[in-house]
């Protein structure tokens, strides 16, 4: 199997997984679909010679985020059988245009001739930089921003989910 066929299969699988994620009536299956989509994005990142970003994507977006979403779903109410059937019918009615839109977009995009020799805004470096060098030397302020955002997120969660005095 040629590399082009492998990449085509990965992209087709990615779009199919994303489509199934939004189409499925059950929330738990949607979260599983999201995890599968993340795994396929990771595979594509490895094809794009970005293994470190791929590992981050796999561990966080296919591991941590589905775990958080499953915890949220377990704390909310489950649909009964009647509500589930009604939900499935509603999904089919709402989402069939998406299938047509995705197929039409795929056909249109495959016929478009995109010029690939475009001048890069930043010239490529003389020697290919490692991601660790880029993060620590070039984007060190991003690291500070990440720390601030994580702390802000942690404080926001503590404030939002704490119990009010007198509340059971």
């Amino acid at each position, binding site marked *: 199997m040629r590399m082009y066929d492998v990449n085509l299969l990965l992209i087709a699988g990615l779009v199919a997984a*994303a489509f199934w994620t939004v189409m499925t009536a059950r929330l738990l299956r949607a979260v599983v679909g999201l995890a599968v989509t993340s795994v396929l994005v990771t595979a594509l990142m490895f094809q794009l010679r970005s293994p470190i970003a791929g590992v981050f994507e796999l561990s966080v*977006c296919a591991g941590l985020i589905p775990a958080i979403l499953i915890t949220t779903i377990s704390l909310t109410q489950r649909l009964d059988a009647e509500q589930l059937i009604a939900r499935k019918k509603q999904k089919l009615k709402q989402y069939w245009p*998406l299938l047509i839109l995705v197929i039409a977009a795929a056909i249109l995009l495959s016929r478009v001739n995109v010029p690939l020799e475009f001048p890069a805004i*930043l010239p490529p470096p003389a020697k290919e930089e490692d991601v660790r060098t880029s993060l620590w030397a070039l984007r060190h302020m*991003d690291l500070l921003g990440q720390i601030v955002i994580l702390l802000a997120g942690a404080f926001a969660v503590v404030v*939002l*989910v704490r119990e009010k005095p007198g509340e059971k």
Partner: protein
Amino acid sequence: MSEPVAHLVLLCGMGVVLLLIVGFYSLLMTRNLVRMVIALEILSKATTLALVASGYATGQIGLAQALAITLIVIEVAVVVVAVAVILCVYRHTESLDVAKLRELKG
């Protein structure tokens, strides 16, 4: 740009556009709060893939990976806060439907 590189970049570009279509459509159609978060996740996957593919196309893979990692960290913080808000909303309204969020009093 060599042919295999061009093919891969084109395929990734196509994948990004299709993921954006799926994500935006789902975000517009759904009324469930958890599904909105899932749709946002699909959109951010499209963005991450676009970043990494453009880094591959221009030979700046290190910089693209650094930006993708930053995006993933911010994505986690956004999801965690969104989930906390969803749980608060569910505590007050016993529902995940946005149509039931008609009052600011909480």
